[in-house]
């Protein structure tokens, strides 16, 4: 499903070149849930940006579902992203001028789904995250957990094959995180999407099929995760 | 800020500048005002089309007191010494020049279109320009004042008429008026005004006209054209009023009239002259002009006329008269003028000292010249003799 080979990305900061990812390789199977852990600044977000085509790599390739994302140019990259990838951010990134259902529907409309079908699908996915009743609320009136659930709904409403989550619980208290996490996991599974979570929340990592650790630009398999996988 | 001239003066100056480009004459030499030539750079021989003073002619009076339009230039020159009733003393100069712009036969430009019923040619078109100088020497107050007028000879603004004599510019005039009609005796009125002074005088000739030079033909240089017709009335009785700052003073005295006309100019080597018109108290009078050359020497064409007490006249040649300068005066600009003379005429046994009544009697016109009242004292045949007169000094001021 997701195949990454020799991926490298470095940033120039002042006069210094900061190598964030170096010859990173990775394979994720369809439906697999993978957690990537690492310290702040280890390059976790960069990895997600490269996979989704938001950022471009210096070297190496990313294949998503057989398409080489790194070889795509704009606007093909955007079109691929909006059709095949969903995104959940640490800070929710809902659009404040739109209400709850509009935030969700926006993605469908960008994928060409309009009118009643768009409305129904949006409401259905909101139902699934338990927020159908708040469909017409202003987003800044929602709690953090609710906002993140809207974000999850938005990320999955168009049924992407791959869901990328960047610290989805990082901005939530422990209690709320515990409420949001199952929604994320079950919804991903029910829609058959592959999930790649970047986090340093151990609880979240524990829920993944596989845990990888990003250190010095490369991924390292964690023993604990292997155990979890075998289980 | 740039200083913009005004139209009124600039137009005249433009004319001046257009002229100076062509005047290839060394400075300070030919700029000669006064009785001999018009104030201007006139160095050319007489213009074609004008009559010239080439030979002796008969003089007919009173007709010849009037203008001679066939000649290019002409002047009426009156100078005199006056005594007021309270003993104050004045000198005056009032002189009129006539300059012809075109010879008599040459037509003036006329407008191209002729509209019947409308007057098309402007009355301002003129063939002549008139210039007048008026100076007053107020001895008691130590003041010398002068003024100048220029007019075109058109519209009655300025002009000259012969019989009876009337020469005028604006409200300055010589002759004319009712006084002329006084039966028999010739009388001329004289009127002029300037800041602070005015004169209202009546002149009565005491002698017949005296013809200068060769029976009135006065040669100023070797060139035949540099000659003019020249007569004087050396003694005119003057009565009238001097108005000083609006207050009238009754005056009487003696004046001198010089009349000259011609179409030529000075010789090119001449730089100026000293002119003496002295009235002596025995009834005689002496006129002499000493022409100066560029090299400082006296020109041999210098000449004069002696009028005896009994009316006999005798021409004086250059060699007859010896003049030495006894004093000098310097004006504020640094020009040096003679200011005292010793004149000897051995053939007449005449020995005179001449002294200005005021040192500064210079007219700051363009060009500048000195014309002032003088006192005379000396002797003839060992008899003491006094007198008064006028002296004109031309060519001393540096041109700038």
């Amino acid at each position: 499903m997701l195949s990454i080979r020799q991926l490298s990305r470095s940033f120039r900061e002042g006069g210094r070149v900061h190598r964030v990812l170096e010859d990173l390789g990775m394979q994720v199977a369809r439906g697999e849930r993978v957690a990537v852990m690492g310290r702040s600044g280890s390059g976790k977000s960069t990895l997600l940006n490269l996979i989704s085509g938001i950022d471009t790599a210096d070297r190496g390739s990313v294949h998503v579902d057989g398409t080489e994302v790194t070889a795509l140019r704009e606007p093909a990259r955007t079109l691929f992203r909006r059709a095949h990838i969903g995104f959940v951010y640490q800070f929710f990134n809902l659009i404040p001028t739109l209400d709850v259902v509009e935030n969700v529907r926006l993605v469908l409309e960008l994928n060409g789904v309009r009118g009643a079908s768009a409305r129904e699908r949006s409401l259905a996915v909101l139902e699934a995250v338990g927020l159908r009743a708040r469909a017409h609320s202003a987003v800044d009136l929602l709690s953090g957990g609710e906002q993140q659930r809207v974000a999850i709904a938005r990320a999955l409403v168009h049924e992407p094959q791959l869901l990328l989550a960047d610290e989805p619980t990082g901005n939530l208290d422990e209690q709320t995180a515990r409420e949001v996490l199952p929604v994320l996991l079950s919804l991903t599974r029910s829609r058959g999407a592959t999930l790649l979570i970047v986090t340093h929340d151990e609880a979240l990592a524990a829920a993944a099929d596989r845990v990888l650790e990003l250190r010095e630009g490369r991924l390292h398999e964690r023993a604990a995760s292997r155990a979890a996988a075998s289980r | 800020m740039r200083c913009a001239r005004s139209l009124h003066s600039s137009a005249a100056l433009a004319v001046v500048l257009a002229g100076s480009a062509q005047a290839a004459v060394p400075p300070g030499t030919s700029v000669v005002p006064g009785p001999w030539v018009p104030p201007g750079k006139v160095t050319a021989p007489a213009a074609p089309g004008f009559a010239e003073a080439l030979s002796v002619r008969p003089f007919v009076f009173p007709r010849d007191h009037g203008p001679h339009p066939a000649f290019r230039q002409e002047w009426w020159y009156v100078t005199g010494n006056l005594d007021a009733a309270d003993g104050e003393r004045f000198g005056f100069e009032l002189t009129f020049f006539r300059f012809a712009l075109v010879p008599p036969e040459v037509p003036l430009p006329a407008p191209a279109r002729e509209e019947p019923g409308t007057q098309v040619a402007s009355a301002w078109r003129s063939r002549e320009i008139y210039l007048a100088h008026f100076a007053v020497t107020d001895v008691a107050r130590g003041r010398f004042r002068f003024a100048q007028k220029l007019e075109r000879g058109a519209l009655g603004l300025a002009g000259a008429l012969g019989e009876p004599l009337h020469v005028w510019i604006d409200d300055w005039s010589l002759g004319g008026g009712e006084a002329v009609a006084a039966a028999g005796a010739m009388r001329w009125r004289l009127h002029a005004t300037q800041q602070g002074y005015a004169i209202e005088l009546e002149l009565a000739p005491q002698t017949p006209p005296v013809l200068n030079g060769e029976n009135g033909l006065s040669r100023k240089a070797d060139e035949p054209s540099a000659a003019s017709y020249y007569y004087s009335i050396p003694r005119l009785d003057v009565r009238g009023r001097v108005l000083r700052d609006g207050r009238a003073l009754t005056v009487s005295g003696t004046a001198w009239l010089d009349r000259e006309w011609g179409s030529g100019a000075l010789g090119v080597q001449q730089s100026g002259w000293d002119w003496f018109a002295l009235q002596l108290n025995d009834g005689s009078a002496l006129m002499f002009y000493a022409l100066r050359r560029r090299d400082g020497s006296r020109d041999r064409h210098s000449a004069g006329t002696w009028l005896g007490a009994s009316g006999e006249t005798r021409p004086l040649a250059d060699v007859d008269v010896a003049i030495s300068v006894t004093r000098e005066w310097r004006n504020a600009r640094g020009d040096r003028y003679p200011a005292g003379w010793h004149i000897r005429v051995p053939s007449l046994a005449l020995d005179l000292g001449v002294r200005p009544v005021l040192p500064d009697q210079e007219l700051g016109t363009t060009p500048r010249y000195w014309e002032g009242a003088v006192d005379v004292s000396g002797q003839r045949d060992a008899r003491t003799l006094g007198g008064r007169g006028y002296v004109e000094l031309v060519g001393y001021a540096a041109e700038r």
Partner: protein
Amino acid sequence: MSALRAASLRHLWRHPAQLLLALVGLALGVGTIVAVDIATASARRAFELSLAAVNGAATQQIVGGPRGIDERLYVQLRTQPPEPLLRLAPVVSGYATVGKRVMQLIGIDPFASAALDAGGAGGTAFAVEGVGEVRAWFTAPGSVVMSAATAQQLHIGADGHFALEVGGVTHPATLIGRIADAGPGFDGLIVTDIAQAQEWLGATGRLSRIDLHVAADAAGAALLARLRALLPAGLTLHPTRAAGRETFAMTDAFTTNLRAMSLLALLVGTLLIYGAVSFAVLQRRTTIGVLRALGATRREVLALVLGEAAVLGLAGAICGMLLGLVIGRGLVGLVSRTINDLYFVVAVNEVSVPLTSLLKALAAGLATALAAALVPALEVAASAPQLALARSVLERRAQHVARRLVLVSLSLALGAGVAVSASTHSLLAGFVALFLLLLSVAAVTPAALRALAHGGAWLVAHTSTVARLALADIATSLSRTGVAIAALGMALAAMIGVAIMVGSFRESLRQWLLESMRADIYVSAPGVSDSLERRLDPQVIAALLAVPGIRAHSEGRRVTVDSASGPLDLNAVSLVPASYAGFRFTRGDPARAWAQFRAGAILISEPLAWRLSLAPDDRLSLDTAAGPRAFTVAGVYREYGNDRGEVLMDLREYRQWWSDDGIAALGIYLAPGVSSAAAAGALRAAGHGRQALLIRSNADIRELSMRIFERTFVITRVLYWLAAGVAAVGLVSALLAWELERARELALLRSLGLTPAGTALLVMGQTAFMGVAALLAAIPAGLLTALTLTDVINRRAFGWQIGLHLGAEQFTNALWLALAAALAAGVYPAWRSARLALAAGLREE
């Protein structure tokens, strides 16, 4: 405090684009004021210099009626002066055409003029050093002098020969000298001898005036009294300066209008500075909050913000001055052309930059910036020390302000109404009303935009979330863009207003021309109207009228006469029955008015009636050749040809009172079936070889009038485009700032799948919507502005009544401006958002 300053400077430094655009806006505003100042000052200075050159030391002048003064009066004053040392000089003046250029022709007597200047007959420095050249001046045919610069402009060759045309007749002329040290006052002046001038101008026996120098003391006053007593009837003696002032005052309404237009540009600039400063404050709310929390006093914060504004104002003023110098140079030509078209001949060859206008610019820039910054400065200083305000709070506050501004707008409009209705003649009140109205537009525009955006968002809510998002964003952006939109709305309203006014005026003029041009062909002597030389040769008239096919003809003479109310244009006409229909009375009963007119009463045009507050049956005193005489006003008629107004009088009446039998123009009425072109040809042939004539059909004259009309409004157009330019710059600046601020939101949309092209489209669509919304708000306001311009400003400035005529073309300029400004404002942000580095844009706060 220096740390505060450093922070403030660094902030400005880090937002160079915004800073630059605010500066450009202010500089354009200040520059326009300076430019108009320079243009009018240059025209005035040229006029004064020319006056000073022509008048010299003259303090007073004796003037006569249209026929001038009998030259014998001058001779009398010379030879029998009322005072011995009277300084006086005769002048004959008129106009001559050399090539295509109209020149002032002045005839003088060099002796009298030099004596007048040099102090009379006293010790003058006057020199005639070349009798030869004096001879040329007096006796060479056609001798003239002029300044070297003018000679060069006329391309006069070394031999000095050139042709000069006066009143349709060509004369050979010779330049015999160039005026030394001639200042710019001599530009466009040809000086010749008085005799020559009289002959050329056909004014033999007459003088235009007699210049006098009279001391300004008691003796001088006594002399003037004596002189006045001595003057024949019909002649007046008045101070030279007053005469000049009176002449230049003709342009007052025109220059006032220009000034008002330039103020408009500054007003727009003020709004921009306000926008820039409040935006800068808004962006730094957090910083300022921290500063306040750390102990900076309100006073210090206030000083900080105002200090920035002062720096901005100073910089803007200096740039504005420089810009003004550049624009001013361009405007000088336009202003002088309009003055030449409408008022009097003046050659403006030098640009004069009055120090006062530079100081004014400095003060305007500073005051504008400080005034604009005061509100945000007070607001931020007054707010409690808090770290940050939620964005929605700010937006809500902006919306609240927008709502309050609607009330402000209403009261401004009310104020405009009061200003108009409380005064009847005051032009100032008219302009106050106009500005209040425009400010009212500015105040209401943000609210209008908000309402439109909300309405639009509601409409598309169910069809396109992206569109709804775009519209909702606009509605909430008002805290950033409101001021710029307001400025644009105001500029657009002004633009529409002026366009409607010009269009209506054009239409009124066109109709009036159609109505009033009753004759088929008009014949006149070329030259400047109102001048002595503009007369038809009587023989030529006879020859012209002998041309077959003429049914009737009217005769006309247009002159300037003196009156107690200053010089007035008098149009003396002999009308034929067909002429009467050409007059549309605005006051007075036509039948009665015409009867009175034929009996010696006068008719006056609308502008004159307005200016002198005259109504039918009032009396107007005119200085005739026989002294002042009161004429009865029989009626008021519509006339757009002369903004000072005119007096219409029967030609016989005029001849009787002014003893002037000249005829300047003929109106030829053709018999039925005679072609206008054929008749014009025959007339031309009849006049050929005698006098150059202007023979024009009524259609030609209409076209010419319309052309002059268009030229007159070029400068107005230039000024409103400048104001519009300021507004456009402001909009670009504000939208740029706004778009930059929401880079994050755009990055999010991009990450959600909006393509680069889609993003660019979104941004452009938003800015275009803003432009269109401002336009929509400006249209009703523009109509109101047009009404104010036609019914208040034009009426008060000139007395014209103009019917409102609407046409689509009056709105096109505004539409283009709105779209162009909005799209131009959108291009850079759109381009930027399309190329957004998403990763950086999305980086968490």
